[in-house]
């Protein structure tokens, strides 16, 4: 039973992730983020699937401290 519960949760989470990241168009995602009060991602990152190391899921914003 506990195995079913965890597997079902994993499937639901995976479904939500795929729906959000792969199925919904970037424009709609941005609109939903704005509705939720979250700042939309950079437009340049909109179309990228994170495969190329560009802005999609590329390096996180860096903050180097000098001196």
């Amino acid at each position, binding site marked *: 039973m506990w195995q079913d519960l965890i597997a079902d949760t994993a499937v639901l989470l995976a479904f939500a992730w*795929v729906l959000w990241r792969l199925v919904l168009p970037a424009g709609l995602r941005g609109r939903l983020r704005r509705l939720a009060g979250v700042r939309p991602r950079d437009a340049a990152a909109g179309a990228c699937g994170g495969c190329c190391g560009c802005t999609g899921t590329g390096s996180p914003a860096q903050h180097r401290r000098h001196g």
Partner: protein
Amino acid sequence: MAAVASLADPPRIALVGNPNCGKTALFNALTGARQKVANYPGVTVERKLGHFVSPAGARVQVLDLPGTYSLRARSPDEEVTRDVVLGRFEHEPMPDVLVCVADATNLRLHLRLVIELKKLGRPLILALNMMDVAEKRGCRIDAAALLAALGVAVVPTVAIRRGGIAGLLAQIDRTVAVMGPRGAAAPCGWTEPSAHDLRGYHREVEAVLRDALRDAGRPSLATRRIDAVLLHPAVGLLFLLTVLFLMFQAVFAWAEAPMELIDAGLSALQAAVAAVMPDGALKSLITDGIIAGVGSVVIFLPQILVLFFFIQILEDSGYMARAAFLLDRLMGGVGLHGRAFIPLLSSFACAVPGIMAARTIENRADRLATIMIAPLMTCAARLPVYTLLIAAFVPDGTVMGGMIGLQGLVMFTLYAAGILSALAVAFVLKRTVFKGAREPLLMELPAYRLPSPRNVLIGLLERARIFLARAGTIIFAIMVLLWFLASFPVPPEGAAGPAIDHSFAGMLGHALAPLLAPIGFTWQIAIALVPGIAAREVAVAALGTVYALSESGDALESSLAGVLAADWSLPTALALLAWFVFAPQCVSTLSVVKRETNSWFWTAVMIAYMTLLAYAAAFVTFHVSTALLGG
């Protein structure tokens, strides 16, 4: 209407300069970012934002901009630079300080942009980059005289080795301290310089050089001698083909041991989980869905790293720009713009940056033609598919007296098939829908450089991170879903055959099978192709999961390649390879095509022509190989 900076915002500096002068290397040195740098022009095609805290404690925003020779922008990437510098972007305040990065080995060319930027009347710093190369060439620049002649602060740097960064930071602090109130820089009344203005800039540059350039130096004798060989129309091309050929041999030979190690590790993990957990849905999800699916892709990491090790060495050394020069005649023969080489080259990693790199092409028809063929280049995501099928169906033998590995030869052929088909499609497009005169390639050949081990290592780590991040996100999530679709509904009491036959995925596979039967694909392949639309290598993971749920006992213990070799005919495997040379199976690529062309029409055209080509190629391959080899 441009945005105005508020006093609370940190000061913004923008890195501006000609292509391939080291702006991104400087950006990385300042911010600690790891944006891609390479020794050829056109790598950065959009603005990148980073931050750093200066030695004086000021938080500073840095913008890395695409290279441009002038603010007279002619291509989309140059327009980005012009619009950021002039504060024309609606949601982005104008930069407070411009840092113009100039290649010290070619000041005559680079100073023209400095003069143009100086006329904007904004705080300006000149970063004289690549000073190490300039000194090696015997080039002597009097920085004090340059400062006096230009009237802007001059800081010598070697960005790739972080040389001169302290001096640049100190100058940024000084400039920020004395600049006027934030947001006070009104949009200047910039007008596009006329030909007369440009001649004037050129005269100013000559006057500055008379004062500041003591010795222009010259390219080293070694560079000229190497170029005499590597740029020779026949010898150079032969060298290029040899390099590429050796690269694909190494992809198989060098990666074999670490791949076996990963395979053994994954098998041990699968066995351990199976031994520890009681039978149930979660155990099946972990062993059949996650380990069999995600693991069947992760195993290809060593090959990806070997391939990108070579690409990184070729890029950093300056050879890639020579390869562009060598292949220009071939590209021109099919009507492609000379600048199409860099987008096509970038597409070997992934079509997404390749398509974006087409922004460097001024003419829209030429840009569209390049975008339409970029996905035909063999991207890294195809590598797991090719390797799996080659390992399963091509014997691990040698030809030509043991000199050439057969598997590497087949891989080389598949890459060549991608390139040749792209050229053939370009030939057709340029003679039908994208007619127009061919524009020549004008490209500065960068100096040869010994690749920096640090840069190569960072590039490989970044590539590994990207690959594993994909395995841990897109592939993982899709495999969890596929496991569900391939496991439910459970078969009715007394049903015969594997349970997957009765599942949603099995039903979908059997429904699609008649459509794919003429090209020799099985229902398992039909299942794998559907999630493969998200990313090509997902098809491999899907096959891993589908076969893990279909088989039992000994079949589970053998590798996926072994299972496929036993289950498929050789014509089916060859047809699938042919399919993957052409198939438009990547949703990221299609969405970036939509964004870059601003048109659903061209996106639909790409899907249609690539699907048709894929089906036709698989059909011909399947039937010809069946006739020649038997089913």
